[in-house]
């Protein structure tokens, strides 16, 4: 019990003093996970829309891969990315091992399946006749797809949040690919692991509070958006 009390007191002190190590780790987390999620959204939402709205040969196989990807263990993703980024690996010339770029690649591979899969589900749940209606109003196929993504934006937003949630809280891949370099690739989760192993519970709690606050903030945004929409609809 004393450890918890001491830890919380230490966390408050570090947060109040804007401890540079804690703030650096929080900033690194936001940058790396934000970039990975942005890339996952840019590539995943259109691909999810394609899977959700169209029928093509190999669609089910692709969807199976995507669904499998949603359950990929981060350490396995980390292992494969390290192999590729290793000095003698296929992408060794990039020198991205132990860099934020490498971490972004690893986290992208973790976030993308969630964004693709949940976007596909979101668009499959849209009334199929709505697409026909949009085409009948003169929409091109691209315009119709964009309007349908907008129409199911809260579900797509949920997909984005799920993708971000998957990477902001993972530790294995980031640790393996980023090497947990202080002030650079040390992010909230790897820092918590390190501080806990050193018995620095104050720092660990401070980092954990920030991580929880980020996750809570995202959940709150989704909830408010959802409630706002429901209120407008009734």
């Amino acid at each position: 019990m004393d450890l918890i009390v001491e830890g919380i007191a230490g966390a408050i002190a570090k947060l109040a003093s804007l401890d540079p190590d804690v703030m650096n780790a929080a900033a690194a987390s936001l940058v790396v996970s934000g970039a990975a999620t942005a890339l996952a959204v840019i590539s995943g939402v259109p691909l999810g829309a394609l899977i959700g709205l169209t029928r093509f040969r190999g669609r089910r196989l692709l969807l199976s891969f995507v669904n499998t990807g949603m359950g990929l263990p981060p350490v396995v993703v980390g292992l494969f990315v390290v192999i590729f980024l290793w000095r003698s690996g296929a992408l060794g010339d990039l020198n991205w091992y132990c860099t934020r770029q490498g971490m972004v690649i690893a986290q992208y591979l973790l976030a993308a399946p969630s964004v693709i899969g949940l976007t596909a589900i979101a668009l499959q749940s849209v009334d199929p006749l709505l697409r026909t209606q949009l085409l009948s109003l003169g929409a091109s196929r691209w315009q119709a797809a964009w309007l349908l993504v907008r129409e199911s934006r809260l579900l797509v937003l949920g997909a984005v949040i799920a993708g971000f949630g998957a990477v902001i809280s993972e530790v294995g891949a980031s640790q393996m690919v980023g090497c947990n370099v202080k002030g650079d690739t040390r992010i909230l989760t790897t820092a918590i692991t390190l501080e806990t192993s050193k018995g620095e519970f104050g720092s660990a709690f401070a980092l954990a509070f920030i991580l929880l606050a980020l996750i809570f903030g995202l959940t709150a945004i989704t909830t408010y958006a959802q409630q706002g929409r429901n209120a407008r609809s009734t």
Partner: protein
Amino acid sequence: MLEARDLVAYRGDRPVAHAARIDLAEGEHLALLGPNGAGKSSLVLGLATLVRTGGELRYRGARVVDADAYRRRIAVVFQRPLLLDRSVRDNAALGLALRGVGRRERDARADNELARLGVGHLGDRPALGLSGGEAQRVSIARALAIDPEILFLDEPFSALDAPTRETLIADLAHVLRDRGVTTVMVTHDRDEALSLADRIGVVMNGELRQLDTAETVFGMPSDPEIAAFVGVENVLPARVERATDELTMLRIADQHVEITEPPPPGDDFPLLCVRPDDVVIAREAASSSARNSFRARIVRIEPIGRRTRLVLDCGFPLIAHVTRQSARDMGLTAGDQVIASFKATVPHLLPRIRH
């Protein structure tokens, strides 16, 4: 304006509706009538190039090759309003926005159409909070705002309650007449078809079986299934006894029937169609111009809305409709003997379908 030849509409890889020939003139209102699941909607979606089609579709003389360009000249209103989660005005202006019309102009045109459909006051409201009737009015306003050259209506009233439907049909009929928009409407309701259409096409089992004026379709249906669907309850197997220049003499069971319509060529066993409304009931035989009068027994009396349906036995079964007032005034009851008659000019002959 729009010509279809041997048009086949597909759902996936399956052909679901076929029309040998449709010619739609500018300003014309055509209704496609048929029972549920007959393929009417598929046919309309085919005409609107919203499903895969076979055959030939020509618009203003040119074959439709660029479906996107063709669809920018038409509009479709579906059974459900299919509004987006945005304001009523933005929904009504959607087609204009897709055509790149500027915000100010499209809002003005959307407001104009909304007002014309009686929902102008709802422009700022969220569309998903509207009642069914209001939402369908917005859906129609959205279609009309783009000033379509052809308006396709796919059972737009079927999900509405009766009073809302009647008001909306009256308002839409007024708007369509006012603007002269060429219209193709799908419905399974005969009254709706009659209210809005110049010509009626009857679709049954995935086939456009008859396309003609309302008078012809309802008065001279081209086959027994259409006859049954358009309310010709008496479809009686007959035998041609003799035909002259003026009259065709038929035998139905033991009775002799005279009609003015000539028999179908080469068919001595046609089907005689008589609408129940054309059968006159009397207590006693009286001198009249009706050439066909039969002693009949009332087998059953059934009230149907504001009328009474009489099931008669004249040696063959015959259905007659009378007003409820007439049934009361004549004191009609089951088992009574009456005289049933119809004029020789009334019946229509159909060739017997042989399998």
